[in-house]
């Protein structure tokens, strides 16, 4: 066997290993009910849930509870199946949170509570405003 073949085989082996391991470590986007099933099966891996904050008909965000020292907070979030779930986040409310058009929470269910380790926000604000206030 030629050296170049050995190298080629090695490269393929490493590439396959990378692919398998990426597939193994990849998380999934799920709904809250699926997340609950996963937790019920005793699997405490972190998963992603995509959704929005719960708003009243007049567009106000509801369901946000901030701890008295503002160092942690919890909020209601509605997932793509329209299921509402209360989510805890053990850190201060991220800047832009209330303006986000979409929220991705990464975490898992601990008993009946969804605890987020990380929150990603999709904000219109940074790059696109959606309305103008005559006041400003």
């Amino acid at each position, binding site marked *: 066997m030629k050296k170049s073949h050995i190298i080629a085989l090695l490269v393929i082996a490493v590439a396959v290993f990378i692919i398998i391991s*990426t597939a193994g470590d990849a998380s999934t986007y799920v709904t809250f009910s699926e997340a609950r099933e996963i937790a019920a099966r005793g699997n405490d891996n972190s998963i992603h849930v*995509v959704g929005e904050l719960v708003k009243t008909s007049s567009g106000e965000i509801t369901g946000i509870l901030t*701890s008295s020292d503002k160092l942690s907070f919890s909020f209601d979030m509605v997932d793509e199946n329209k299921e509402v779930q209360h989510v805890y986040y053990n850190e201060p409310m991220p*800047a832009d949170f209330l303006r986000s058009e979409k929220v991705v929470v990464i975490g898992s269910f601990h008993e009946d509570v969804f605890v987020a380790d990380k929150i990603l926000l999709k904000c219109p604000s940074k790059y696109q*405003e959606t309305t103008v206030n005559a006041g400003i």
Partner: protein
Amino acid sequence: MIHTFIGDLGHFFAIAAFITGLFASFSYFKATVAKDLSKAASWRINGRIFFLVHAVMIMGVVISLFYIIYNHYFEYHYAWNHSSRRLPVYYMISCFWEGQEGSFLLWMFWHAVLGSILIFTNKFWEASIMTVFTLVQAFLASMILGIVIPGLELKIGSSPFLLLRDVIDAPIFNENPDFVPEDGTGLNPLLQNYWMVIHPPTLFLGFATTVIPFTYCIAGLWLKKYRDWVRPALPWALFSGAVLGLGILMGGYWAYETLNFGGYWNWDPVENAVYVPWLFLVAAIHVMITFRKSNTALKASVILVIAMFVLIVYSTFLTRSGILGDSSVHSFTDLGLSGQLLIYLAVFVLLPLVLCILRWKDLPSTEKEVSTYSREFWIFIGAITLCLMGFQVLLPTSIPVYNSIIESFGGVSNVAPPTDQIEFYTKFQFWFAVVIAFLSGTGQFFWWRKMDKKQLLNSLLPPVIISLLVTVVLMEWLDVYNISFIILLLASVYTVIANGKILIKVLKSSPKLSGGAVAHIGVGLMLVGILFSSGYSEVVSLNNTGMLISRQLDEEFNRENLLLFLNEPKTMANYQIKYKGERLEPTESDGLIHKNDITKIDAFTAVATKDVFFEGRQLYNKNDTIPIHGENIYYEVELTSMEGTKYNLYPRIQDNPTMGLAPSPSIKRDMSKDLYAHVVSRLTREDVEWSEIKEYEISPKDTFFINDYVAKVDGLQRIFELEGVDLTPNDVAIKGYISIEGEEQEYQANPIFLIKDGLVGRIPGEVDDLGFRITLMNIFPDENKFVIGAETRQKDWIILKAMEKPLINILWIGTLVLMAGFGVAVTRRYSEFKKMREKGVE
């Protein structure tokens, strides 16, 4: 008033830039394929003229857009969305590229500059490379075109010159179409940092230069100049590698200084999207150098240069199409450009692919098996490692792409990127880095002469032994006991020492050739810096009081954060640490102002109530009016070392009305480590709760205690003028003078007791620093006594988190060394190219 002219002009420039770009490409194409020399020459002149006009048009777009931002024409969406009146000019420059259109523009601006340089510096290659170059440029120009093709409803590009009323459907525009907002919504606070003024231009210069080696490669295949394209491409590839690398690291440095996660790299998809092409670029540079030396690896050079540029286009697609929406914190949202971006990507995958297939058989290659003891072999292994390293990052970063591909075929895919990105990427990149470090230490030895087994052992032995010794010393000194860290440390030290040895030798004979050795020393140093600053980063703000900050918070938070009350010292990491109060930032002078030295008139103006000093310098005189940055509050934290030297940290919180709170760290830089601290939380005035009034009946000069502070009434005095109150001769106003002994200084409180029109009024005197409010409750002149009421609140506090980052300076030094190495190499390779050009060969 709506200034429509400047926007129309800008839009015209954008359209003209696109068209002239296409014409330039076509003319250069004709010049390349023309058989007749005079025809070729006249097409070439056409191409030059079109490119020149194109460059002028690009400048026109840039100037128009900047004019709109600079003059606060908020009737334009771009200015309104990205700027505001209070923004200083240097940040207006950052507004320019905060938006997607502006950043395309920045990219095109660099292309315009680089294209001019290419025209001036090339003879033979001009027409062929400029054909490709201007084609790329036309694609970019189409992104800001902003025209709708009638009938098809097809929108091409997104113009930065749209009026606000055309973008946003707000009711106000129905009533008054000429409505212009008073102010813009401002620049993202995180981008209000000087690194954001220089990082994007650097990064985009890096992006823009990557096209140059690609154009040479395509031109080489096209003109069948298979061997000749490498020489002119190499200096540009090196330049690109240097600038792109520098741009990436500046981004990391910005993140380190501005964001509070405590690191310089987060494996965010947007970061990865630049990192991967850079790795391929570095791999391409290595194989190109091999080819220049030994005529091997030509095919690898072609493949890698093309792959590198395709990855640049791919990363543009990733970051700008909105596809990363769910996985990245800071990708752009979709502007409806995804279709255009896909076409761009498809063209630059297919075009080189077809060309390669057509020419592949003609490409010269060596059939001879390379020897294991040759430099070609080891460089090739290194290049493969770099590619795999890139592949490992590319694969998970592209997860959103697989999802949308599957979904576009009607399937369902819900794969998400790994949740702990740092851990996930590190576990691979770490070992790749080890391999790279060992290779770049050893590879350099092959570089200089042919080797056999014995010679190799002889020349490798000394650096290996020295490296082992140095590693053991470092292990002992810095307490490295983790086995994988030891291996990386050894590999990095070995790179530095082995290349150091070569550097010494090269400097004696031909310093011009030292670029490689210097660059590899830089890489070794960077790895050492990364190893310690990330691997041994340690939280030092440990709460060792045994008291919880809050029961509602988890254990880790309570353990790793320090609650600091104003002027109450605690200990942290061999320092005595003390929070000394809020500071404000004047817009016009370099320094910070103590909150107690001024009164605020409005959010953006203050008046000095005494002479204002900052760290020994006088900034303002008493009664000066001081314009301030209304959004920024700095928290002075004093560190006193064991030896008694003091150092002030000023972590910041920016309170932006639209973006919310944005904390930024403050960094104490020492030779061996950085102390990195940011404010996690603070007492806000809205949360203040006052205690019940506690009353004291006392006589003048009596002392009494409020919350353990000694207070004394110095006297009472009748006053005849009181701001905001109209005093008649029948009214009585009495001002109390009360002094309180604080930890740092004596405070004065001046409560006022008022009888007006027979009614009693009381105006309390507040001592902000101590959290007191003192009221004159009642006065009994006959008994020479009076009653004082004191309310207390929680003193001002902040919660601070601090980390130590050991040896982070080695990372920054390593970066500079790497850049210097690139610089030396660029000079050398460019002079080679120039020599050949002057001989008339190129």
